């Protein structure tokens, strides 16, 4: 057998791989003052990959013997991950240029992680999923610890690494058992095998699913595996945190979506309640702890845990006859969340130039010193809380709707989420309160043009998606991943 490879289907990945090699090599020949040129180079590569992905819109191609699938779901997320990568590159330029960092290596590692993200939504095979996940995580461990002389950054890296590796090991163990039960690593075939009669291996299959879910729960920082996230987010360089909180987390969710809705969908009656519990605890713990935070990045970290709880909610609805709707709700939420979260981190990057401690109190008076940033940040916070007129409202709306349509436990979950959303207002409002209502020292703030641009762009996007939610909500239902 001589397998033919569909090079068009994997063109974005090829371009990215090429770029990251080029970045690494070129970096060697650049003199220190020019090292920052690695960023435009990386950007060009990502942009090329982005264009290559756009040519795949509407495609439905499989390659590598069915383990790599480019369908609308995959393209949607590839476009999304590459956009996030561009934004993170924008945020990184000044941050890494002004600190004393190895810039070439940073961009190399960032791009590797992005490559993993881009591969993730196409992976329809346990092995591919595993490799993508490792490719996302392994470079991320290093860039989280990239502030080499700061013990806090070291700690961020170590915790992230230990938890990450432990969770991969648990997940792999589950995968090996699933392979044993079904005799295949392909997600579709696993789905078929698990739909049939399993005989005495039913329990083993359920245990294996639990192992895999646990592994992913670490990645998406679901309770009770959430404790690494705040530490890592706080210790890592801020642009890296922005990447971890949006792309890396979304990558975890795309993997989870494919596993749950394709491979394990017939066991939904078993894992649905598990996800219900995950969802409730994750959002409640995240919100309650966030209430006590004084440091902006930690606040956003706990908020991102709470938000993960909202994203997990649609999983709990699987098997209640609203699979397609729940799936679309989860995807829509992940995308909207990433936009508003990236925007918020852009503002944090700008403020971090003024005060590296990044206490919430450091935002005082921002409305006067940097009105545009303050306005944007207010929009992001309102959006994260899910209040109109912002995109976050629709994100929550679709999740609520799926929950209420599912009836029964879905309504209960929706009510829990509503209560949580109200609680979250307390801390989301804390930042606008500091920026607008509290008088701060008057010192005009100069933020890098690229960072301001990102913040303004994200704010505009948040409003635009509110006005016309089909901008985002239109795509997830097109996905052919989940049968109606």
């Amino acid at each position, binding site marked *: 057998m001589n397998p033919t490879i569909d090079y068009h289907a994997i063109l974005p990945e090829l371009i990215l791989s090429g770029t990251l090699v080029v970045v690494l090599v070129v970096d060697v020949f650049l003199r220190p003052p020019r090292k920052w040129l690695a960023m435009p180079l990386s950007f060009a590569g990502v942009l090329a990959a982005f264009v290559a992905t756009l040519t795949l819109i509407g495609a439905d191609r499989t390659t590598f013997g069915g383990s790599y699938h480019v369908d609308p779901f995959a393209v949607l997320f590839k476009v999304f991950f590459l956009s996030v990568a561009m934004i993170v590159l924008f945020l990184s330029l000044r941050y890494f240029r002004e600190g004393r960092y190895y810039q070439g290596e940073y961009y190399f590692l960032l791009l590797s992680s992005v490559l993993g993200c881009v591969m993730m939504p196409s992976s329809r095979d346990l092995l591919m999923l595993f490799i993508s996940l490792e490719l996302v995580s392994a470079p991320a461990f290093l860039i989280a610890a990239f502030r080499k002389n700061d013990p806090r950054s070291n700690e961020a890296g170590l915790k992230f690494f230990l938890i990450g590796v432990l969770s991969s090991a648990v997940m792999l163990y589950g995968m090996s058992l699933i392979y044993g039960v079904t005799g295949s690593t392909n997600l579709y075939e696993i789905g078929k095998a698990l739909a049939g009669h399993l005989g005495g291996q039913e329990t083993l299959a359920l245990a294996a699913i639990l192992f895999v879910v646990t592994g992913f729960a670490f990645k998406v920082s679901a309770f009770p595996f959430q404790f690494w996230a705040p530490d890592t987010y706080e210790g890592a360089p801020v642009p890296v945190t922005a990447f971890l909180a949006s792309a890396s987390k979304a990558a975890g969710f795309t993997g989870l979506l494919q596993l749950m809705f394709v491979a394990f969908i017939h066991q939904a009656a078993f894992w649905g309640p598990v996800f219900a519990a995950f969802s409730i605890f994750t959002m409640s713990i995240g919100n309650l702890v966030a209430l006590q935070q004084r440091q902006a990045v930690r606040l956003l970290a706990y908020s991102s845990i709470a938000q993960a709880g909202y994203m997990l909610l649609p999983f709990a609805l699987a098997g209640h006859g609203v699979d397609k709707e729940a799936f679309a709700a989860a995807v829509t939420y992940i995308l909207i969340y990433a936009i508003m979260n990236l925007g918020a981190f852009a503002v944090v990057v700008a403020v971090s130039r003024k005060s590296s401690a990044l206490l919430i109190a450091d935002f005082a008076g921002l*409305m006067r010193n940097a009105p545009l940033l303050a306005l944007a940040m207010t929009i992001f916070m309102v959006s994260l809380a899910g209040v*109109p007129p912002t995109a976050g409202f629709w994100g929550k*709306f679709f999740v*609520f709707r799926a929950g*209420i349509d599912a009836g029964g436990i879905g309504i209960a979950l*929706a009510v829990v989420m509503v*209560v949580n959303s109200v609680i979250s207002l307390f801390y989301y409002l804390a930042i606008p309160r500091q920026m607008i209502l509290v008088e701060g020292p008057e010192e005009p703030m100069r933020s890098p043009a690229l960072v301001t641009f990102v913040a303004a762009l994200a704010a505009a996007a948040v409003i635009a998606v509110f006005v016309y939610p*089909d901008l985002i*909500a239109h795509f997830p239902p097109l996905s052919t991943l989940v049968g109606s």
Partner: protein
Amino acid sequence: MPWLSVTIFLPLIGVPILLFWRGIPDPVARGVALLASTTTFVVSLGLLGAFDASTPGYQLVERATWVRSIGLQYLVGVDGVSLFLVMLTTLIIPIGILASGSVTRNVRLFMACSLLLETAVLGAFLSLDLLLFFVFFEALLFPMYLLIGMWGSGRRVYAAVKFFLFTMFGSAFLLVAILFLFSRASGQFGRGTFELTKLQHLSLPPATERWLFLAFFIAFAVKVPLVPLHTWLPDAHTEAPTKGSIILAALLLKTGTYGLIRFNLVLFPEASHYFANAVSILALVGIIYGAIVAMMQSDLKRLIAYSSVSHLGFVVLGIFAFTQQGMSGGVLQMVNHGISTGALFLLVGLLYDRTHTRQLDELGGLADITPLLAGSFMVAALSSIGLPGLNNFVGEFLVILGTFTANRAFGVLAATGVVLGAIYLLWAYQRTWHGPPNERYRGLADLSRVEITAVAPLLVVMLVLGVYPKLLLDRINPTTNKIVQQVQVVRHDQRLLARGGG
């Protein structure tokens, strides 16, 4: 001409100018906001002209698909209930802008917030799609939060956060209830919808209907506010800047009572009957409690804030009497309260700009120094009390009459509320303006020309509506008549069912 859309979105035109023109001089910013809001008022006069008084249903309906995938429509329409609330909104906002001369910080943001608020309030009053209503209903929170938090006095941040959280808490459940209706609609009609007139025909089991009624009711009761959900109101009112108080009293509270008529009664008639007595009792408690607490206040603004609790109790009482007089009286009172209390807050604000205190025991004897201000306050207070010949009289009379025919005890209790109202307002008037003049206040300026332009329209409206309430009632009655009939039919059906079953 699409009267409604133009009215709703016209104020928004000023917002980008105010937000993005950084160096805009303050007077120009005021001018822009004033221009945008007065033009809106003029347009709304056109709307009034286009309104056909004889038809009870929704008029001037505009419909467009907004989000196809979830059946969300941009659907607006006006009827007798919303018409004068819209007029009130477009009238109050420019007056508020005129009266905010004391705002000197961040003028352009202040003006932008005012205009955003106007759009959100108008949108809420005119939406006939539940989700659209919800969006506008929520969208008005944040500008209001800023208005209180940035330009308020004293414990403004506390008041702003309290206001935001209370109202968010209420409306969160509203969203779940709306989505539940949507989900039921997709089950019964084969296609989900948020359209009010379609959801009216949804058949719901009584228990479900009651739960939904409560979810809607809590959201609106927080806004009205009904005791015991009223605690945010005195704080918000007291700390808000003058303009904020005016908007709160005249407009925001009305979104609550309006929601009760528009959604609770129409969507859940059976549950409305079921809860009618309980709601009426809450309203009565509000009337009397508000009046008694108002009597004990030493801060003039807080006193008026509590008087709002009392007055809004009348509105709710009238609505839940399910008689045509009660309902019409309730709707009329919404408008009247907006004008009278709006005027009172405006005048207190102007007084505060001069004396820098609102404590009743520090004021006194000001009638000689600022006669125009005192006279205006007198008229507004008398109107608020319900003196015949001024606007509130007719509304309160109708409410009490309507309640009396439905339930005598409630009617009598409501009447005592009017007496209490007279006591605390006259007492406050006397303590502020009469008595020995305080030396400190010698030489205070009386109303300036701009201020007169702000106050005069309200006083004129009070007189006109007091003498000729038919102007409003002719347009309100057909609609309230229809709503009352709809609700009565359901009660009738229930009786028949009960009899048939027994």
